[in-house]
């Protein structure tokens, strides 16, 4: 009891499995969703307005392509990379990997916030699959914050290089 030195140093709590499981599950959902949108972008039936689901104004808008790549494909890359990071942690159990993954989730929520803003105020139409993606990346961000909080590390780093440490 008296020899418990760990309490004086920063307690490095382990992250419960359910968080890791949730990170993986949600990025799989995001990956499925954005793959579907990408396929629709390249192969789907041409744009139209429908009696049943309103307009495909969002996926047909000029904002649906960034740097020549459809937003949906950016989404695929993001979720795929996220999934790989989570699996990398499962494989290596390296705490730095998990911290990087947790911080990386901000990319998704910033992008989602921007596209939500575009949908509501500029395009004035919402697209269901884009909303699913927004929910996924928000969930990933919240999970990321939970991870950092449990590990007692701050989101911000003193050194720029520390943000990019995966190992």
């Amino acid at each position, binding site marked *: 009891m008296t020899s418990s030195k760990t309490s004086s140093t920063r307690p490095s709590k382990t992250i419960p499995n359910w968080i890791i499981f949730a990170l993986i599950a949600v990025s*799989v959902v995001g*990956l*499925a969703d954005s*793959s*579907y*949108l*990408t*396929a*629709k972008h*390249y*192969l*789907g*039936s*041409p*744009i*139209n*307005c*429908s*009696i*049943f689901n*309103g*307009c*495909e*104004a969002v996926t*047909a*808008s000029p904002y649906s392509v960034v740097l020549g790549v459809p937003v949906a494909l950016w989404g*695929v890359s993001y979720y*795929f990379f996220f*999934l*790989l990071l989570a*699996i990398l942690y*499962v*494989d290596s159990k390296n705490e730095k990997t998990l911290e990087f993954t947790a911080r990386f989730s901000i990319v998704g929520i910033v992008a989602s916030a921007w596209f939500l803003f575009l949908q509501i105020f500029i395009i*004035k139409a919402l697209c269901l699959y884009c909303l699913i993606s927004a929910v996924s990346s928000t969930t990933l961000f919240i999970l990321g914050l939970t991870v950092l909080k449990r590990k007692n590390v701050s989101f911000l780093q003193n050194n720029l290089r520390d943000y990019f440490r995966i190992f």
Partner: protein
Amino acid sequence: MEERQITKRERRELKRQEKLEQQENGAKSRLIKRFLLWALVLAGTAGLIFGMVKLGGSEPEQSAILINAVSPSDWTKGNKEAKVVLVEYSDFQCPACAYYQPLFKKLSEEFGDKITFAYRHFPLRQHQNARLAAYAAEAAGRQNKFWEMHDLIFENQNRWENRGDAENIFTGYARTLGLDIDEFKNGLSSKEIKDKVENDYQSGIRSNVNATPTVFLNGEKIKVPPNYDELQNIINEALKNNS
């Protein structure tokens, strides 16, 4: 004594070897586990993406056949006797229809009398100004400026789509086109025009139209490609087959 010692040493050696083997086995099984993990993840991801691509790429395309042939009451461009007849069911407030408008315009200009292009109204419920826009085009049509109004309405779609005063905007277009404004306004509220738009809509419903733009080529619904070249090819093909 000696024998016992040897066996002791041997035993120790045996134990050491066993331990080493166990460690080796452990490392091996860990490696296999890691390999399986990554293989599973990659295969799963590939399968998932493949499935989603199949799902997203092959939207069930409902077939539809045009019930009502082109009649004198339809707005048409080109030659009414042409062998290639295009009928578009369209909604002035639909962004996709506005996207296709210049493509169809170019098509009519290029193919001229070789084809007929007919426009029918299919104002969707979710578009608050779609019907009014259809009335405006019809009202301009009474003064023989249907297509001119049709173009103006589509080209300026984002200026009136969400406005409460769209009627004023359309009246402005009527003025631009040099129409008799009183007559135009009468047209906007005339029952005849309202009935015509509703008739177009109902004929669309009968022909299984459920989205705009829906285009029928010689009575059969076609998938309209989003670029002019492919559209041109479809028409050329139809001309070849119907000559």
